């Protein structure tokens, strides 16, 4: 029933973030394997129930249709394909200036992190070792996420106030500090999705669980002599006071 309707309305409006061929949009950006996994997760390996909607679109007739401008203002999420990236561009040199005034106080002069705020730079090659360092450079799989997150949530004290050129410039600067892009690289809607982040292929998007297989044993499950205490929180001295006013553990208390 809906299939016929869907067929008629299949083509998204021009300029929609989802026009064009999705597979083509993702060519060279997302591996075919990951694209297949995402699609399978989205539609439950083909069992998606939304071809049997309980009601037809607009059945209740409640609410308004948002204008194109309203939709554009709130539609800020940028997927790995880069769909929705706005016009504009920026370089690392321009980004360095913005970074110094807007970002360095928390993320450090060189992206090393400060005052327990996250490091943005470094750690490439450390993830499989004993002291993994997760940064934009070492960990984030897609550069579109860098653009998206700076745009939506940074700077922390005044989120979503930067202009697209500023966000492109900061993206270029952070990627350059990480050695992912050259200093003359220009970040824009076309170039950002094509950046090959070092950790792109190390994410497994398919949940492997269950990966533990305990059994509900009731009697003599382990040898009593094997039950040894390996750690005891009372010796750690990390616990705030749990009675009275909330303990902020300020120095000197």
């Amino acid at each position: 029933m809906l299939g016929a309707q869907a067929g008629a309305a299949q083509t998204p409006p021009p300029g929609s973030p989802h026009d064009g061929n999705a597979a083509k949009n993702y060519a060279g950006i997302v591996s075919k394997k990951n694209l297949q996994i995402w699609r399978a997760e989205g539609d439950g390996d083909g069992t998606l129930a939304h071809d049997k909607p309980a009601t037809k679109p607009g059945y209740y007739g409640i609410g308004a249709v948002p204008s194109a401008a309203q939709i554009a203002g709130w539609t800020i999420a940028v997927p790995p394909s880069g769909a929705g990236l706005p016009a504009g561009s920026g370089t690392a040199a321009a980004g360095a200036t913005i970074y110094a005034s807007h970002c360095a106080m928390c993320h450090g002069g060189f992206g090393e992190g400060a005052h327990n705020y996250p490091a943005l730079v470094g750690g490439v090659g450390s993830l499989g070792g004993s002291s993994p360092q997760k940064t934009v450079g070492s960990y984030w799989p897609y550069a579109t996420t860098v653009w998206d997150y700076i745009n939506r949530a940074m700077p922390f004290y005044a989120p979503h106030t930067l202009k697209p050129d500023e966000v492109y410039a900061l993206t270029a600067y952070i990627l350059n500090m990480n050695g992912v892009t050259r200093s003359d690289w220009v970040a824009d809607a076309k170039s950002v999705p094509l950046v090959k982040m070092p950790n792109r292929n190390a994410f497994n998007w398919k949940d492997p669980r269950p990966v533990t297989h305990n059994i509900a044993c009731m009697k003599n499950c382990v040898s009593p002599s094997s039950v040894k205490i390996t750690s005891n929180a009372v010796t750690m001295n990390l616990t705030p006071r749990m009675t009275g006013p909330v303990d902020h553990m300020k120095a000197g208390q």
Partner: protein
Amino acid sequence: MTKPNRRDMFRLGAAAGAALIAASGRGARAASPPGAPPADNAWSNSLGHGVDSKPYGSPSPFEKNVVRRYVPWLSPTRDADASMTPLQDQPGIITSNGVFFERYHAGVPQVDPKAFRLMISGRVKKPLLLTLDQLMRYPSVSRIHFIECPANGATEWPAAQLNSLQLTHGMIGCAEWTGVLLSTLLDEAGLYPDSRWVTATGSDGAHMNRSLPMMKCLDDCMIAWGQNGEAVRPEQGYPARLVVPGWQGNVNVKWLRQIQVGREPWITREETSEYSELLGDGTSLGFTWVMDAKSVITFPCPEKPLTQGPGFYEIRGLAWSGRGKVKYVDISLDGGVNFQRARLDNPILDKCMTRFTLPWWWDGKVALIQSRVTDETGYVQPTIVQKHKFWGADPVYENNSIQTWQVLASGAVNNVQLS
């Protein structure tokens, strides 16, 4: 000046009465420690406050210790931090709204319900823009579900570190949520066959967003405006939040403003940099949405020791599973050598806290007490040793391991881990 009304006269009378009692010998006795029959307590010889004194009630002042608490060394700033529910003081399966755990990425926005809008957009046939009043007109449901942060217990991955039930297990709350099924709104907007993913976005400063597969969105997700008999609290996403039953707390986007539909996931910061799991071999798990079954003994616990010597106590606790209902809870008193089955209290609901109890005659000796839940899928809560085998030595998320409390002869209780 207005004339004193009848209630004011009552109040005057009560004050005068209290003054009289204070001057008498009985008043002096009432000031001595309470709970001493045959005398009356002071509150039995006076009038209490009237119906107009507390239009919105609060707990007894004697319960002032029952508050959300946090771990000050976990986060650099309080507006991107988490606080924990005092589970040691939660008698049943419902978490009181005032102490429901918090997790913010840019603090709590003060959303004006008149200016609230919910947008359904992206790959839909008819985009929608709803006011709160319009959202509330749709057919609604009311369901009790837990919401748990996947970082609940994160500090306990490398070792027993925090000597507290609240701080090791309190990034969870369970509430009755009332709202519209997301499937109702997605049907209203109309989906295409390749409308496979949704990103839900909040109106907080972080514009917090996560990608969710359409399968889950059409299954049991809801946009809730009600929480335990009142409007959703600001800390929980007022005026409307997404509830994604059984899935990690972060995807239950608060202060919701947009449901955007697309073909593929967006791979946001909160599903890569955060809320992904780096394994020992350097690879990472991207989407680990479901909160696996977990249980914990809430009495006794470090905050609630055994203070009255050997004898009868009731072991009490909570269990839950993101994959369905709790089937069994088994309790060990000897560090996992032997177990006995706990009694489960009704109701036993899908993706909801379940209360369990076990009578215990404590002999006054050291005991290592544990609870272990089995959910309706047959999944059995693992030990920390079993968890480490796959998840590595020091991960962040999804610590659903069996908790061991060491009960000392003094009755004090410590958080320990076993080999």
